């Protein structure tokens, strides 16, 4: 039945969300974004998250090239990049990425290049994981809507 397909997919969405919350990947700010989605703004969450992805990838690329410089001295600039990534991660509820940024900033404040590179690797990994999971979430959401589910609100 059309209805039960949508219901099953909704259960899948909820399960994935519960997993992401439980693992500390997302926090309640993500729920706040979902609450802002309605008939007047039915794609709000994916719009904001996609902007987040674009901005974050720029920042991560810049961070990697800054840290790879032979004579690295511009820790101030690195700090600015980290703060931007930290801020936008916090604004969408990307808790784990945000927390890694905190560690990153600590290493950068100490002008610790090795530490920075190590944290950057973790950051890149965690960011990839987040992006994959959120893409998965949006995909299931799309399928749910195609199966006749209502697009908003995103949660029960």
């Amino acid at each position: 039945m059309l209805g039960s397909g949508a219901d099953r997919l909704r259960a899948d969405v909820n399960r994935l969300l519960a997993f992401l919350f439980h693992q500390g990947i997302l926090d309640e700010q993500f729920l706040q974004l979902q609450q802002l989605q309605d008939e007047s703004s039915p794609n709000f969450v994916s719009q904001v998250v996609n902007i987040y992805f674009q901005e974050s990838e720029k920042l991560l690329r810049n961070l990697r090239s800054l840290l790879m410089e032979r004579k690295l001295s511009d820790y101030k600039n690195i700090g600015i990049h980290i703060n931007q990534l930290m801020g936008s991660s916090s604004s969408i509820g990307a808790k784990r990425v945000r927390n890694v940024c905190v560690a990153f900033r600590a290493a950068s404040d100490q002008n610790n290049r090795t530490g920075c590179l190590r944290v950057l690797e973790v950051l890149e990994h965690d960011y990839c994981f987040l992006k994959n999971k959120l893409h998965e979430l949006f995909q299931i959401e799309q399928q749910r809507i195609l199966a006749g589910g209502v697009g908003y609100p995103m949660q029960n």
Partner: protein
Amino acid sequence: MARNGGVAWMRTTEKIDGYDLSTSDTEEVHVLAVDDSLVDRKVIERLLRISSCKVTAVDSGRRALQYLGLDEEIQKKETNGFDGLKVDLIITDYCMPGMTGYELLKKVKESSAFREIPVVIMSSENVIARIDRCLEKGAEDFIVKPVKLSDVKRIIDYTTTELREGEQRGARARRRGINKRKQREGDDDLSSSPPSTLSSSTSSSPSSSIQSATAPLSPSTLDSPTRRLKMTSSE
């Protein structure tokens, strides 16, 4: 000819009074949001729209000043003239490249035309010294990011209350003025009665009386750390 004269007269008064009339008709609060982060701009825009506000979002303090017509380098066309609507509230991020939110706050509060506009600062850092600095410079409130709907609702609530109270105060003052004129014209039997002892039975402490005078008595207004700070420090 008479009609032309009439229309010209109408137009002149409209120019003087019309600007104020048209904006007081609109119920919606117009907020100028300032943040260099695109993600944060999208979020704050949505939070404000869902709270029934008109929003103009800009990405820097400089652009905010340009919008208000305060940018020194750009000449204002006319005294009343900026392209946008009258701004009822400014919400700005603290950490921005170029002009910080604090510097924007200072510029707004130092301008005779715009110092009455409440300015709210947003910051991801919960630093008491920073909050104090902003409040001292005249910031209305300070929100720690990430911004939630409850933060926005709280701020819009007391902004609209203050706007309404300001209008009511104005209307009451105008009524008082009219009544005074009527009294002078007619018999003045509303002579000054001896000052009645006000029953101040309920409010004993100063802080509670301040509370009843300014903010609506809702728990949400007391949630603001800066409101609490303000109330206790004014004792």
